[in-house]
């Protein structure tokens, strides 16, 4: 097991560094001393050009084609992180690392074919242990997957040389020599072949049968997501704007799935006709990747967003992609205490925050402080959710009310009957808010319990500071 992991790590490293992947084990090296066929498996995707009509159309379509290829490459990154472009019409996917995840080569191929059938029915797939051979097989239409070096040599040899895409001069040389199939090239003396067709051709043949390392540039995943949608008509209704935004969120979810990531800040831009766009940022408590959840939160924001004019287009940008947290469910947790409930709670917080604002939601905490108005603390629910109260439990021998007024309120002496016991609080000389008060419990006119104080700094003035609710 550990050896397998180590081998995979080495292979990944080799691919990342774009150095020739070293042979894995000594026996393999002994058996095939010149082979660099390792435990990689390449899938080539070839988009035949015969769908294009004529040369002009071909020239026009080049630009569109390259973006089409990139789009297809991005799409195929859901099957493997290692995808490289072979312009103008090919893609290479390293799929050995994905076989376990997708349940074997057959299933992976079936899935790919099914998915491709919708948008690229003309695409041809081929599988080989080395990239050059996979491409060649795809171009030649040999779609049966090849996984070992011996079969590869036999099958590749039977393919016509024209599929190698040689330039006109070399193709002519080969034609004059009467060579049709690649196998015939392989049988010729290497030195002569190099002299007549150049060393490049020899290298190509070597790469084809795995005799030479063939590093491929990997298509990097974009760091930033940006997508735009044009609305069919100018729209002001929040519900219909949400429909458009949901489409963008689905694209975002695809992007996030590829990167196994989540986002916590979504920048929205609502474009107007002949006016600067309305921009707002959707901040989330914890990174999310579920488009439905984000859409629900967005609905609250959209309803509150003042729109100066009708919207003609929506742009979504996400700058950072945060790796997803793997969550472990607690098998023994009682329902409603943790686990699933914790998830739901974050969602509830998100919804409350989205609608009422981040300032409106919070928890309370105690502080070790004698002044009553400073002995508590408001804590906003920021990232990570509410925090536990870590201040030491103060041993109040004295009574404190359940309700505290935000500000002490002047009170007429006739409005209450105080009890004789007093509690003097003199504190706060160090931070410019000193207090000097005699607190008492009092009964109001209707029997309610009040917490009042006599301000010793202003004798004769009584204030109401709380209720024993």
């Amino acid at each position, binding site marked *: 097991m550990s050896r397998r992991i180590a081998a995979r790590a080495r292979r990944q490293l080799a691919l990342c560094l774009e150095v020739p992947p070293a042979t894995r084990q000594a026996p393999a090296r002994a058996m095939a001393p010149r082979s660099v066929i390792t435990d990689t498996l390449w899938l080539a995707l070839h988009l035949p050009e015969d769908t294009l009509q004529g040369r002009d159309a071909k020239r026009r379509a080049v630009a569109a084609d390259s973006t089409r290829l990139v789009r297809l490459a991005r799409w195929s990154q859901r099957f493997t992180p290692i995808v490289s472009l072979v312009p103008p019409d090919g893609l290479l996917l390293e799929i050995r690392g994905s076989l376990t995840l997708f349940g074997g080569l057959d299933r992976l191929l079936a899935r790919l074919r099914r998915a491709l059938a919708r948008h690229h029915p003309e695409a041809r797939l081929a599988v080989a242990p080395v990239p050059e051979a996979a491409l060649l097989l795809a171009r030649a239409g040999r779609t049966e997957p090849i996984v070992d070096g011996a079969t590869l040599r036999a099958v590749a040899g039977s393919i016509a040389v024209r599929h190698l895409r040689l330039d006109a001069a070399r193709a002519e040389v080969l034609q004059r020599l009467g060579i049709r199939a690649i196998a015939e090239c392989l049988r010729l003396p290497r030195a002569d072949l190099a002299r007549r067709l150049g060393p490049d051709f020899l290298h190509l043949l070597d790469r084809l049968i795995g005799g030479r390392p063939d590093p491929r540039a990997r298509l990097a995943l974009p760091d930033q997501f940006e997508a735009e949608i044009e609305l069919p008509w100018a729209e002001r209704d929040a519900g219909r704007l949400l429909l458009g935004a949901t489409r963008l969120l689905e694209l975002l979810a695809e992007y996030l799935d590829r990167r196994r990531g989540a986002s916590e800040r979504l920048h929205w831009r609502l474009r107007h006709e002949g006016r600067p766009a309305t921009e707002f940022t959707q901040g989330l408590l914890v990174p999310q990747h579920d488009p439905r959840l984000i859409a629900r939160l967005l609905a609250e924001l959209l309803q509150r967003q003042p729109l100066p004019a009708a919207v003609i287009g929506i742009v979504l940008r996400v700058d950072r992609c945060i790796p997803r947290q793997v969550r472990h469910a607690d098998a023994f947790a009682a329902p409603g205490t943790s686990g699933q409930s914790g998830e739901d709670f974050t969602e509830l917080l998100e919804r409350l925050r989205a609608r009422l604002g981040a300032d409106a939601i919070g928890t309370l905490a105690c502080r070790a402080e004698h002044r009553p108005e400073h002995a*508590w603390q408001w804590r906003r629910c920021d990232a990570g959710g509410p925090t536990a109260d870590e201040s030491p439990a103060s041993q109040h021998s004295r009574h404190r*009310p*359940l*309700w*505290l007024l935000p500000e002490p309120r002047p009170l007429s002496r006739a409005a209450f009957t105080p009890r004789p016991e007093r509690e003097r609080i003199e504190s706060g000389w160090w931070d410019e808010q000193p207090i000097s008060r005699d607190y008492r419990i009092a009964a109001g006119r*209707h029997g309610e319990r009040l917490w009042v104080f006599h301000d010793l700094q202003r004798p004769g003035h009584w204030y109401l500071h709380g209720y024993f609710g």
Partner: protein
Amino acid sequence: MISNVHSAATLPEFPGIWRGGETPAAVTLASGFAELDAVLPGGGWPVGALTEILSEHPGTGELSLPLPALGRLSRAGRWLIWVAPPCIPYAPTLRAAGLDLARLLIVRRPEAAAQASAPKEALWALEQALRFPGCGAALGWLERASMRVLRRLQLAAEAGGSWALLYRPAHAAEQPSPAALRLLLRAGEHGWRIEILKCRGGRHGAVLELPRLAHSCGDRTERLSTASVAVGAQRRCAPATPTGRLDVVSATPSPSFGPHGPAVPRRLRDERW
């Protein structure tokens, strides 16, 4: 003529016949006050239903009354969500009363600029809280609430299985309500005077007086050894009980305002704290 006449005792065997006064099979939450539990059907606060506490003045035990039950819920890991409390719930006292502050979520009143939509937002937040499955109790302070709104909250409480506790002014007693339990709170002679205005599956009209708790009155000496209970049916002719119970009903001081009006503001100011 059918010979066998069903007596009242055999009637409940028929499906679809429900007798008033019977306790519906409902989940309840012990209030922590034996006297109150004895009066409430099922022996406690109705869970998955709406409870209303009506009081005209703050400081009449409106928060102390549910506090023991709330403390137990929070220590069991359930969330307490308080929507739009009128003043600052004082954290040191709450903790001293056994509330786990880490499980208490406060939704403050919106800022002055958004006062117009404040009741709507508060109702929305309350409904969201009630429908959240991890919520043990949701407390809301409402000035006005229509029957439709109350019905909505009652349904949300049923759906979420949480305890909805609604604070309303005393004059709301005249309004009908779908709440399972409605209590009117006043300050009594020796504690809180609780009048049960409505009690689904129980007897309404009961009046009881509970001694104040230490954290709510600040004086342990006021604790009474026995609570005095007078049932509404006996209101008119409640005789002095031989055990020396205080007959609260006859001794109830009717709420009266001074000639100069209340010096303590009757309604708390709606300010952001």
